[in-house]
């Protein structure tokens, strides 16, 4: 019998953060338990105001073997960066 609790990935939105960020993982019996454990493990020092948990098994990851095909072609396409424009001061932080 497998006695380990399922693994969950934890995402926290910080006080001033706009999006949830991955902060780590933990074990829990169900989603509600995972939220409680995330609260105790990852927000003890006021790190966040919102928690998402996702069963780790539900995350599909890209394969390291695809690294070349996936990312290398972007190396020589510097024109994709919007760094050739002058941004007016009035626009503020981008």
């Amino acid at each position, binding site marked *: 019998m497998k006695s380990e609790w399922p693994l969950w990935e934890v995402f926290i939105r910080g006080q001033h953060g706009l999006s949830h960020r991955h902060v780590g993982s*933990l*074990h*829990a019996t169900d989603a509600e*338990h995972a939220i*409680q*454990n995330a609260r105790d*493990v990852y927000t*003890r020092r006021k790190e966040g105001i919102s928690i998402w948990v996702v069963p780790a098994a539900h995350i599909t990851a890209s394969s390291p073997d695809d690294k070349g095909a996936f990312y290398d072609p972007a190396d020589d396409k510097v024109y994709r960066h919007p760094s050739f424009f002058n941004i007016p001061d009035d626009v503020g932080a981008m």
Partner: protein
Amino acid sequence: MSVNGLIRLGDNALVLGQRLSEWCGHAPALEEDIALANIALDFIGQTQLWLGLAGEREGLGRTADTLAYTRDAWDFRNLLMVEQPNRDFGVTMMRQFLFDSWHFEALTALTHHGDVEISAIAQKAVKEVTYHRERSTDAVVALGDGTEVSHKRMQSALDRLWPYVGEMFTGDADDLTDMAALRPAFDAHAGAALDEATLTRPTSDFAHQGGKTGVRHSEHLGHMLAVMQVLPRNYPDATW
């Protein structure tokens, strides 16, 4: 305003906080270990507030630290429930659930206390205790309505601890709120959770008493205080 009433609240938090801290490094899962330590620290924080105010109102120069570390077992005024040993994780969670269910109602009542300092402490503490109760309730439901083994352990934990429930609702003039009046709300929450957990409440209403009056603590309190107080008693000038 009763100093004894403040000491009762402080001692409940202190003794249960110390008990929970005994799990540190021993809980069945890392996440539970951290959660129990967090909750223990919540209780120690509440202890500082209640015993700090008690010392201030008493006016004899005693602080939260001197009250915590230099009194003997017979001067403690905590409920017998909180000094009961941890035993296994099931007993610890059942004790927590029964205490939290009472604690939540007591603090909610105290948020309306006429003394602003008392109501301020209650308002801060009730936020923490809302979470404590949610967590311990979920644990009792999950383990009670879990496997055959976990159900059996939770039922035996309930049978063991139920005789300590009655004392929570006894009262006298030292209490800061009418404890008997909290019983219906306690029964509603605890009853619903125990039903969901498929656990059966013992039919006997026999209640061990003597903790909050200090008349008769169980033998467990002295052993716990010996561990808790050894350092400040041996090295009164120790700082960290």
